[in-house]
């Protein structure tokens, strides 16, 4: 006596592209497509680490481009190098600032207000939900300074290869008080 399989009697079936009309395909064709799909899945895990596959991509804020332009336009020229009116920055500071914003822009609380410190570093000021945040950027260090519950909190970052992680951690600590 013929007994239908569960697959044949199921009222609802979830079909994949391979299943679609598989009964009228030749077995060889189905197998070939299965192999193709399996290979493409395999390629993904072969070429990328798991962390890379699941890592969220950085959302670049709209202000980043204009800040980068402002920084680049403020680099000393031959004309304003001779008479320093404190309106220009040197190339090393500009490079450090551009790199900092590129790495951390999505973490920062708002568009910064920028100016040059008296010693030539770049000062960036931000409004946050808990108060003001100031970040000083120089070629050799970054200083984060914020007021939490009326008290100052400060961090100096000298290992610039971990600046993103440090900024994320610092801002996270502000949020939790």
């Amino acid at each position, binding site marked *: 006596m013929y007994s239908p399989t569960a697959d044949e009697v199921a009222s609802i079936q979830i079909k994949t592209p391979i299943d679609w009309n598989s009964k009228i395909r030749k077995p060889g064709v189905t197998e070939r497509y299965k192999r193709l799909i399996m290979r493409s899945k395999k390629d993904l895990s072969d070429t990328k680490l798991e962390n890379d596959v699941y890592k969220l991509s950085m959302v670049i804020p709209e202000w980043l481009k204009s800040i980068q332009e402002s920084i680049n336009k403020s680099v000393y020229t031959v004309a304003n190098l001779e008479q320093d009116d404190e309106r220009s920055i040197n190339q090393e500071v500009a490079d450090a600032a551009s790199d900092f914003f590129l790495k951390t822009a999505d973490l920062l609380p708002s*568009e910064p207000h920028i100016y040059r410190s008296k010693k030539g570093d770049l000062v960036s*000021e931000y*409004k946050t939900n808990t108060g003001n945040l100031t970040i000083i950027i120089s070629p050799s260090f970054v*200083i984060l300074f914020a007021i939490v519950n009326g008290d100052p909190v400060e961090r*100096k970052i000298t290992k610039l290869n971990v600046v993103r992680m440090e900024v994320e951690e610092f801002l996270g600590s502000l949020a939790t008080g």
Partner: protein
Amino acid sequence: MARWKPDKKIGKHELIGRRLFDEPMLIGYSEEQSFEGLDLRNFEEKRDDETSLDRLGRTGVEKGVKNYLLRRAIAASENFKPKRTFNGWFTVAAHFIEGEQINGKAISLIASPIIDEDLKENIYHAHVVKPDETDSIVMALYLRHLFTKYGKAHPVNNDNKLTLNTFTSKFLIVKNFINKINPFKSR
């Protein structure tokens, strides 16, 4: 009434002021993002580890002292290249500075009258000394914080025939803003 003659030691309730000058913008920056706060450069010292301050009165701003200092502040503003505008002082009672700590190291507030000729003289001059191993920019950040938290703005007005610029109007906005949000005003 004779103008106050300051003692060698700064009294706890004396009003200590930091001069505020307008500061230049970056040449390539159009200030799309405004900032309602005191400019850090007003608390930076370019030359050495001592931050200059004025003693404006025994418990509040004394008119004679203010007039004495105003002439000197305006003269100082004209020594900048290019010239800048003097906008007034941000003041705080001495006890809020003396003994405050930066990373565990105390700030010293010292009377340091300048004896010189004409407008270079300043018998009301004082200064704070930067603790060792503290970056000068960090010192400026802490001073700005102390003045903002405990202090008050004393802008100069048109009677002094100073050129008021946009910074001054922003300065007044900041003053009102700080007065509104500062929970320590009643202290």
